[in-house]
C-alpha cells in the first residue's frame, strides 16, 4: 500500500498496516462492548459499512493486481474477470465440505472432487474448538493460494500466444479469453466439477471466521478483518515486487518497449511475469469475492466486472497503488451506500423530487466517471503514492517556517 524506499519507510509502512488492521478489528467489535441499546445503526454488524469494507477489501486487491499489469507494465489487459472466475471456482471446488457436496451437486449426483482441505486438516487437528479454527484457517489459506496458482497457470498458457500482441489487440484477446473461460465453466459436461451453470455454495465464507461461543453467540468478529488481512498481505507483496528490479523493468517496458529491450530487458520474460503475477492476485481476489457473495457462479464474472475494476484503476490513477486502493473504497462506498438515496423515490414538501427512481444512482455515477475520464485524466493520485504527498507537504512546511 505504501512505497518503501528505505528501512525507515518499510517500518513505517508495516506499522501503518498493523494500525489499519487493528482499527478494523476494533471497528467491527465495538458493538459487542457497548450496551445493547446504545449501538448506533452504522456500527451494527448488519450495517452497510461492513459490506462496503468487505467488498472494498476484495476489489482493492483486484484493482491493484490490474494496476500492476495495466499501469506499471503498460499491458492493457481486460481479462481480469476471467482470472477472478478461475480463482473463485478453484477455491469453491476445493473447500465445499465433503458432507455438503451431495446437496450442492445434486443435479450431477455428487461431485467428482471428493475432498476438501478443511476436512483433511479437520481429521488431523479435530473439527471442533481450536483444532477446528486451525483447520479452517489452513484449509482456506491453501485453497486460496491454489486459487491464485490456477489463475496464474492459465495466465501462463494464455500469455504464450497473446502477449505478443500490442495494446488494443491484447485487450480484445484477453477479453475473448475471459469469455471463453466463462463459457467452459458453464458447460454441462463439466458439471460434476463445476456444477454447470448452477452456483457452488456452502463453502466457508467471511462470517465463518467469527469466533463464536458454544451457544452460537459471537465472541469476536473477524469477518471484516479477514479480507483486510489477505488484501494487505497481497498488496504488500505487489508493492515489494514493484520496487524490486523486476518492477523497474516493468516500468521500463511501459515507458518504451524498444528502449527497454535495447537496455537488455527480456521483454517476453518480464511481460509473462507481470501477467502471471497479476493473474495470481486476481485469482486470490476472485476467491475472496466468492466468499463475499457466498457463492461461485460463472455468469457473475462478466466483462462489466472487468470494466468496473478498470474504471476504479483509472479513477485512482494509473500507476499508483495507494490511488487504486483509495479509489476502490470510494467507488464501492458510493455505489453501494452513499448514493443509495438516488434510487429511492423521495418527496420533499409533498412534491416528488424529479428523476429519483431505481437506476438513477448508476446514471449519476457513470456521468461522474466520464467527467473523471475526460477532465481529470490523472485520477486521484496520478502516478504518485500516499507517502509522496506527505513528504511534499512536510517539505513545504519546512520551507515556510
Amino acid at each position, binding site marked *: 500500500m505504501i512505497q518503501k524506499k528505505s528501512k525507515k519507510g518499510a517500518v513505517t509502512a508495516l506499522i501503518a498496516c498493523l494500525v489499519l488492521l487493528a482499527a478494523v478489528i476494533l471497528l467491527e467489535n465495538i458493538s459487542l462492548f457497548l450496551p445493547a441499546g446504545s449501538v448506533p445503526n452504522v456500527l451494527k454488524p448488519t450495517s452497510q459499512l461492513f459490506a462496503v469494507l468487505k467488498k472494498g477489501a476484495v476489489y482493492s486487491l483486484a484493482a491493484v493486481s490490474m494496476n500492476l499489469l495495466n499501469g506499471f507494465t503498460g499491458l492493457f489487459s481486460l481479462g481480469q474477470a476471467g482470472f477472478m472466475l478461475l480463482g473463485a471456482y478453484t477455491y469453491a471446488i476445493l473447500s465445499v465440505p465433503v458432507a455438503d457436496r451431495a446437496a450442492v451437486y445434486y443435479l450431477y449426483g455428487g461431485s467428482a472432487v471428493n475432498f476438501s482441505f478443511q476436512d483433511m486438516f479437520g481429521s488431523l487437528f479435530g473439527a471442533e474448538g481450536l483444532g477446528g479454527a486451525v483447520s479452517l484457517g489452513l484449509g482456506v489459506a491453501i485453497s486460496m493460494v491454489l486459487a491464485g496458482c490456477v489463475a496464474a497457470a492459465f495466465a501462463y498458457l494464455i500469455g504464450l500466444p*497473446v502477449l505478443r500482441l500490442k495494446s*488494443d489487440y491484447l485487450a*480484445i*484477446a484477453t477479453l475473448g479469453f475471459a469469455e471463453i473461460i466463462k463459457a467452459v465453466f458453464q458447460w454441462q459436461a463439466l458439471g460434476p466439477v463445476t456444477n454447470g451453470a448452477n452456483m457452488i455454495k456452502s463453502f466457508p465464507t467471511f462470517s465463518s471466521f467469527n469466533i463464536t461461543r458454544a451457544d452460537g453467540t459471537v465472541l469476536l468478529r473477524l469477518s471484516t478483518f479477514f479480507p483486510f488481512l489477505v488484501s494487505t498481505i497481497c498488496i504488500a507483496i505487489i508493492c515489494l515486487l514493484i520496487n524490486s528490479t523486476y518492477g523497474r523493468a516493468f516500468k521500463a517496458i511501459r515507458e518504451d518497449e524498444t528502449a527497454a529491450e535495447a537496455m537488455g530487458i527480456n521483454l517476453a520474460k518480464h511481460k509473462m511475469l507481470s501477467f502471471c503475477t497479476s493473474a495470481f492476485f486476481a485469482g486470490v481476489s476472485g476467491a475472496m469475492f466468492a466468499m463475499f457473495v457466498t457463492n461461485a457462479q460463472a455468469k457473475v464474472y462478466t466483462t462489466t466486472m472487468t470494466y468496473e475494476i478498470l474504471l476504479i484503476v483509472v479513477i485512482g490513477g494509473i500507476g499508483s497503488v495507494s490511488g487504486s486502493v483509495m479509489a476502490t473504497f470510494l467507488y464501492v462506498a458510493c455505489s453501494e451506500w452513499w448514493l443509495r438515496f438516488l434510487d429511492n423515490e423521495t418527496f420533499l414538501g409533498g412534491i416528488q423530487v424529479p428523476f429519483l427512481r431505481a437506476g438513477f444512482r448508476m446514471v449519476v455515477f457513470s*456521468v461522474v466517471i466520464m467527467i473523471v475520464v*475526460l477532465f481529470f485524466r490523472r485520477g486521484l493520485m496520478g502516478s504518485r503514492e500516499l507517502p509522496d504527498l506527505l513528504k511534499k507537504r512536510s517539505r513545504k512546511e519546512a520551507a515556510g517556517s
Partner: protein
Amino acid sequence: MEFAISVLISGISVGGQYALIAIGYTMVYGILRLINFAHGDVFMVAGLLGIYLSASLPLYLALPLVLLLTVALGFLIERAAYKPLRAAPRMSVMISAIGVSYLIQNTATYITGGQPMTYPTIPFLSDTVKIAGTSTKWVTILTPVLVLILVLALTQLIHHTKVGMAMRAVSKDFETAQLMGIRINTVISVTFIIGSALAAVGSMLYFTNFQAITPTAGALPGLRAFVAAVVGGIGSIPGAVVGAFIIGICENIIKSTQFTVFSDAGTFALLILILVLKPTGLFGEKVTDKV
C-alpha cells in the same frame, strides 16, 4: 439437408446484420486507431428508439427518425467523449469509450427499468416465406441483399468522392493529412455518422429477428461484430463484411450442435487464432512499426 440450409440461411442473415455493425468499428479503427466500445451500445439504443418511436408514430415516420437520432447520438459521442482526448494516449481514449458504453447501458437501464422490451413487428419484414423447403422470415433474405447494396454504395463513396478521399488520406497518415489541409474533425464526424447510420439499419434488421432488447443487448453483438472486423482485417470494409459472414455462419453452426454454450467462445477462439496466426486479418494491410 433442410436443417443445414436453414442453419446456413440464418447464419448469412445474422452475418449481414453483424456486417452493418462491423463497418462502423472498422472505419473508426481505420481512422482513429480506437476500438469504439460504445458502438454496440449505439446499436442497442437504436433498437430502443425504434420501440419508443414506433409506439407513438407510424412506422414510415418512426424508422427514418430512428436513423436520424442514432446518427445524432454517434456524432455527439464523438464530439463529447473522443474529441477532447485527441492528443491523449490511445489507452485514455479506449477507457473513455468504455466509460461511454457504461453510461449508455446505465441510462438505458434507468429509462427502461431494466426490463426486456419487445421490438415492434415491421410488416413485410416479419412475414414468413418458404425457401428450399424451410420457412423463414423475409428479413433473413433481404438482409444480405441490403448489406451488399449498402456496402457497394459505401465503397463508391469512399473511392469516388472528396470526403471519401479525405477519409482514405486520414486513415493512411493522421498528421500528414492534417498538414495537407484536410479538416480531420469533419472527416472523423462523417465516419461516426456513417457508422451509426449503418448500426441503426442493422438494429432494425437484427431486432426484427431477436425481439427482446435489454440494456446490455448491444454488448455481445457489438463484440462479435468487432471480432468480425478483426478477422477481416481491421480498416478494410470488404474485410469486415466477409468476416461478419464468417462469424455469423460459424456461430449458427455451433448453435445448431450440442455445444450451444460455446457459440461466443467459438467466436473468440477464432479471433485469437486470427490474431496469433495472421494479425492483419484476411484483407488487412501489413504495417511495420517504426521506432
